[in-house]
């Protein structure tokens, strides 16, 4: 049974990008032993990583190869996606920035002031807000608001045969549907993270001020700027663009790279969001290592 299963998986690994083949694994009767169950999960994980990797490389290839193709069609679509994954989310991000400032910054400033450790404020804020919470929270919000919409839109388009229609018209579906979303989301997450960090730091001071913490705005922002290095700016840009790129890749992959029926779209959306969260946490872990090394 195990050998037969392994052979079937090997056969499917070769065609992992044709996601119809992975359905065999998902729908097969559950193996009896727990080790087989874990094995299946591991194989599915590898298949997903392979599929996502291939899809990411294809997308990067199309971005590079077709940067000058149909500019009058694709560039307005990129602007549209930047608006959708960036500008349209600004009101929500201002609200979240206020909440984050109140929940984290305000309380941290107040707590540090009580123990007389306000000199650590700058480095604490930079680590908590600039390096960690700001980018991750921005990525999660964009994943929830735009990533799910991506899966549903693309999944429905796939199920309704719109992707085949694009191919009959000689239009590369990756160029027309995926590239604008990937660029839009990468730039959107980057820009929103910057706004979120600025908003959270400003509102954090506001809440600290309301709690009568003895610190002037000049001291507060001076400490923060002194704790920031050029590396923070560079890694923040890389990290947020990475978040946006991979959220778009994961959600577009699940929406587009496999034949779907309409009833499968909701299930695929849930899977895409779960994998999006995992990918963001993994990217974050890589950057934590980078920060520690530098």
């Amino acid at each position, binding site marked *: 049974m195990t050998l037969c299963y392994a052979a079937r998986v090997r056969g499917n690994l070769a065609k992992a990008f044709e996601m119809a083949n992975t359905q065999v694994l998902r729908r097969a009767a559950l193996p009896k032993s727990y080790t087989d169950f874990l094995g299946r999960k591991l194989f599915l994980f590898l298949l997903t990583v392979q599929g996502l990797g291939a899809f990411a490389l294809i997308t990067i290839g199309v971005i590079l190869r077709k940067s000058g193709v*149909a500019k009058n069609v694709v560039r307005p679509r990129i602007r549209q996606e930047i608006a959708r994954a960036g500008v349209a989310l600004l009101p929500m991000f201002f609200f979240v920035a206020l909440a984050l400032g109140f929940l984290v910054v305000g309380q941290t400033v107040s707590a540090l002031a009580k123990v007389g450790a306000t000199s650590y404020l700058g480095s604490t804020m930079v680590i908590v807000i600039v390096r960690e919470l700001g980018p991750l929270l921005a990525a999660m919000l964009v994943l929830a608001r735009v990533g799910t919409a991506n899966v549903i839109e693309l999944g429905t*388009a796939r199920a309704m*045969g719109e992707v085949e229609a694009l*191919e*009959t018209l*000689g239009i590369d579906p990756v160029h*027309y549907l995926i590239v604008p979303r990937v660029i839009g989301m990468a730039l959107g997450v980057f820009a929103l993270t910057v706004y979120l960090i600025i908003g959270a730091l400003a509102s954090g001071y506001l809440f600290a001020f309301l709690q009568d913490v003895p610190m002037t705005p000049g001291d507060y922002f001076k400490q923060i700027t002194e704790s920031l290095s050029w590396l923070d700016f560079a890694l923040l840009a890389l990290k947020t663009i990475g978040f946006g790129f991979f959220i778009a890749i994961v959600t577009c992959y699940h929406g587009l790279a496999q*034949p779907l029926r309409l009833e499968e779209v909701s299930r695929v959306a849930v899977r895409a969001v779960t994998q999006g969260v995992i990918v963001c946490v993994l990217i974050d872990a890589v950057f934590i290592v980078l920060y520690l090394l530098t």
Partner: protein
Amino acid sequence: MSENQNIPAIEMRGVNVAAMRDASFTVVEDVNWSVAAGEFWVVAGQEHSGKSDLLMLAAGLMPPAAGCCRLFGNDTSNFGEAELAERLRVGFVFQGGQLFSQLTIAENVALPLRYQKNLTPASAAAEVKGLLELMELSPLADVTPADVAANWRQRAALARALILKPEVLLLDNPLAALGARHRQWWLRFLEQLSRGHEQFGGGPVTMVVTADDLHPWRSARRKFAVLRDKQFIPVGAWNEVETASDPVVKELLAASVELTSQS
């Protein structure tokens, strides 16, 4: 020029057609078929006989499972970006239209023209407007497909396929689910295209339509074939269809007679 005219628009030799949804499943076997420039073919078959898959393969959108399919003399199994110009000589109309739901009817029609020629909406507007007028779609130009009746969606899909002025037009069951008035319009318009329409350069457009009912396509100018038991069977002209002893041909002829008597 004359050499080019002798090359069949579509040619299949020993082709096995795989299902679009599941490449491991063969729906039609050993197809030997040649469509010359200017011909009008009607390929009929019952539901799930592989008509759509055959048409997708003929358009070069999927490779044959076996055998060789040529489009204007070029093997479609090697089709890639470099052969895009050859692909665009073929227009395709899906059953149901498959319009892009996020775009309006006018944007749907304009998209292939704008993408292939890198045009702004304003630059493509005149050509799109002319085609929409020809198709009687002008009042629906700014409406999204969800707000348009199926009859008109199908017509918008035809406009979208024609905007690039293809030499070959493949239509997947275009009359399915159309009302009587729309059916008449389609039959009349496709006949005009087949003979040569001035708005599309005046030359005859080579055409292949699939159908599950043969009667509406009755014409001495057309050639007929049926799909039965995974076999592609060329029948010939209409008089041969009428005298054919094949049970599937008889059934496909009887379908519309039954519908007519019921109505």
